[in-house]
């Protein structure tokens, strides 16, 4: 136990515009479970990718059994006994379990002996509690069974280090129990397990040690014996940065309801991505939807904007029902939508700014290009947009500038009869520099002052807290917690984001349970 089975030493990884991992140190010993905990975008997956050979660190290095090693590809990783179980399974649907297990295995004889493979798969299944029929086709298996195949695949190649990337995200509680039995069997057999998660309860129950990451840095490394969920949540969410642009007065709850949805439900691949969501948004109010990415934010935004149809529930904008009437109906009712992917859903990258402006303008037979050009010109001055001109392609603009163009388009004629009443903004300042971010926040405030209702969906909790009058936390498609921003502590929000609630309170005392 003196040398770690695998370690990252001062590993730094940069992507264009992002410092994904900043001098991260991380060690796992044989026979232990070491969890990497953090919000989405904290750098967990990047760290895991460096440990398994998918990425190479820009600075620092990876050590295997105390020796520096260079992993050029996952293949190198596998050759050194490091196996990654991805969140999105790497399985060939049409192959059998056995075929998937031996795919790419250099130790297989050139002529495959099916019976040898099947016997070994059965042995591994027996030993580690992973029962699986080697002849079953992947396409016929449940998600939980597919995950078992992934683990068997790694064990078949004698992996000594297993990285499990958010393995419980796709499992039912019962399957999670079974997985944990397997994990314990693996550590008992001397394997080193790296567990990646953002769910505090699970982390507390399965791991020996926890490394918490935030914004690419390690914010703490603790033994689970010496910590509790509250402390982990603090490390994960970080101290709130009190915002200077604190909202003025939130108006009372008596203003008109501009956006209302009831029982909104959408099922994707058999799971409820949006699950019975109720939202009431009034004139002059900003509601912030917080939550760890992938808990239903994107589908919720698309449902409210009318882009996707819902399975159940209703949406009303400004008093008129727009349920399943499509995006145009929502727009006509006074809804403006600023999606998270600005170049794609928001703007058409290959069209000029003028043409992009025209996209949401009244649909007449002839377009008013001159008017749109004037509008873009005005926006360039007002919003200080840096662009070669009104006819430049949208793709040439930086993230901040394209966000400004998008906001200029969506917020045009704000406060007038035809202007938008409800503004839905996803990740309003993601990827923007400080100046642009401030500007965008200012715009949203101004929109509220001018009588619009604003819905902000963001993974940046600080941003939500500084902008919104009320906060709702999405967890697994449900509103886990809702309240006035001033009445909620960051710990409460953090715990709700991590899914800690009355029925999932491993190690949490009632006082810590949010809601």
């Amino acid at each position, binding site marked *: 136990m003196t040398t770690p089975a695998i370690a990252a030493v001062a590993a730094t990884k940069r*992507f264009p515009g992002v410092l994904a991992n900043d001098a991260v140190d991380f060690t796992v010993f044989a026979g232990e479970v070491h969890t990497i905990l953090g919000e989405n975008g904290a750098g967990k997956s990047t760290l895991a990718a460096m440990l398994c050979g998918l990425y190479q660190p820009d600075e620092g290095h990876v050590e295997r059994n105390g020796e520096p090693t260079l992993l050029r*590809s*996952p*293949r190198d990783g*596998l050759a050194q006994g490091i196996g990654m179980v*991805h969140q999105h399974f*790497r*399985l*060939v*649907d*049409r*192959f059998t379990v056995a*075929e*998937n297990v*031996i*795919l*790419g*295995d*250099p130790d*297989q*004889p*050139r*002529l*495959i002996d099916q019976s040898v493979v099947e016997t070994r798969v059965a042995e591994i299944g027996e030993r580690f509690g992973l029962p699986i029929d080697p002849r079953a086709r992947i396409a016929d298996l449940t998600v939980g069974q597919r995950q078992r195949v992934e683990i068997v*695949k790694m064990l078949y190649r004698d992996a000594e280090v297993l990285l499990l990337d958010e393995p419980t995200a796709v499992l039912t509680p019962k399957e999670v129990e079974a997985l944990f039995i397997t994990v314990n069997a693996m550590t008992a057999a001397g394997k080193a397990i790296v567990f990646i998660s953002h769910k505090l309860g699970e982390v507390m129950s399965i791991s020996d040690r926890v490394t918490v990451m935030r914004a690419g840095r390690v914010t703490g490394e603790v033994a689970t014996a010496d910590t509790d969920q509250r402390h982990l949540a603090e490390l994960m969410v970080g101290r709130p940065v009190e915002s200077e642009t604190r909202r003025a007065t939130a108006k009372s709850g008596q203003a008109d309801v501009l956006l209302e949805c009831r029982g909104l439900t959408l099922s994707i691949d058999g799971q409820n991505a949006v699950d019975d969501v109720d939202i009431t948004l009034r004139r002059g109010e900003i509601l912030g939807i917080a939550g760890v990415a992938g808990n239903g934010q994107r589908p919720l935004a698309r449902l409210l904007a009318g882009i996707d149809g819902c399975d159940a529930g209703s949406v009303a904008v400004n008093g008129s029902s727009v349920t399943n009437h499509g995006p145009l109906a929502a727009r006509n009712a006074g809804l403006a939508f600023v999606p998270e992917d600005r170049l794609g859903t928001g703007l058409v990258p290959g069209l000029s700014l003028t043409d992009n402006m025209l996209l949401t303008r009244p649909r007449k037979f002839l377009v008013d290009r001159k008017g749109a050009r004037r509008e873009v010109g005005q926006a360039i001055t007002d919003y200080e947009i840096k662009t070669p001109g009104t006819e430049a392609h949208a793709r040439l603009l930086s993230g901040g500038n394209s966000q400004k163009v998008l906001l200029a388009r969506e917020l045009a004629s704000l406060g007038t009869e035809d202007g938008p009443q409800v503004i839905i903004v996803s990740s309003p300042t993601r990827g923007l520099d400080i100046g642009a971010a401030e500007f965008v926040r200012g715009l949203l405030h101004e929109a509220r002052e001018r009588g619009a209702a604003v819905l902000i969906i963001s993974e940046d909790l600080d941003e939500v807290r500084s902008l919104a009058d009320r906060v709702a936390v999405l967890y697994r498609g449900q509103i886990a917690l809702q309240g006035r921003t001033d009445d909620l502590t960051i710990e409460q929000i953090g715990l709700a984001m991590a899914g800690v609630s009355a029925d999932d309170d491993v190690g949490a005392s009632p006082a810590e349970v949010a809601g």
Partner: protein
Amino acid sequence: MNDTAFVLTLAASVAAAVPIALAALGELLSEKAGVLNLGVEGMMLVGAVTAFQIGDATGSLWLALFAGALGGTLFASIHAFLSVTLRANQIVSGLALTIFGTGLSTFIGKSIEGLPLATDFKPTAWGPLADIPLLGPLLFNQDPMFYATVVFALIIAFYLNRTRAGLALRAVGESPGTADTMGVAVGAVRYVHVMLGGTFAGMGGAYLVLGQVPAWSQDGTTAGIGWIALALVVFASWKPLRVLLGAFLFGFARRANFWLQGEGVEIPAEFLAMLPYALTVLVLVVWGTRDLRRRIGAPAALGVPYIRDER
């Protein structure tokens, strides 16, 4: 009913199946790797004209066959480069290959248009076996390429289902991302099998001038066989032994006219000439329908360029 005419027609059908089967087996290998190659007709033309030129110059049948195969292979490498390395649209690239192949073979074949070839494949009778009624003329009185084709189909079936390399090949066609993470060199597998596809198509083209009509004619030599081969892969659900059986059916369709005329049934030649293209349209309909494609067993990643997902 004229029995002799019927048996003769059947025997000729078996021979006519050879080039279709060869080209289709090659296309099957390419498609199993996830690369659709609509350039079969072009590769066959190049194979045919190369084989003719070399056969004419050297007088060696086997050298001619080898040259045809090599010509097809090199020609297919263009498609491999475009679709694997440059990740071009495979339909466009494949069609370009056919158009280019037509032009190139016309150019190479200018001096030999309409000339006869002195050397060609001859059927060999298997002694008394050849005298068995029906089966004799069908199976035991054919030229060596027929037997080679049957063996090729068996080898390919074995390769696909029982070997490590075959498993890797199928994985590349089904899910290149998975194959890549499991250590399979996706690009290399695609290159090899696209080029092997060209080898078989080139051989098929060579056989047209070496085994069927020992002459070169730009629009008469292949006459749409490449398109039939493409359709056949689909109708055979990407299974090599079914490709072989299907080739006999198509071979019969090509030779049936002779027998039908004897029976007093007249099918316009234009109709038969049209068939390959009608089949191609049918295949493209299948191609365009995702659900249908999946149900009949198309490789899931067929036609999709592979890009490793990096940030």
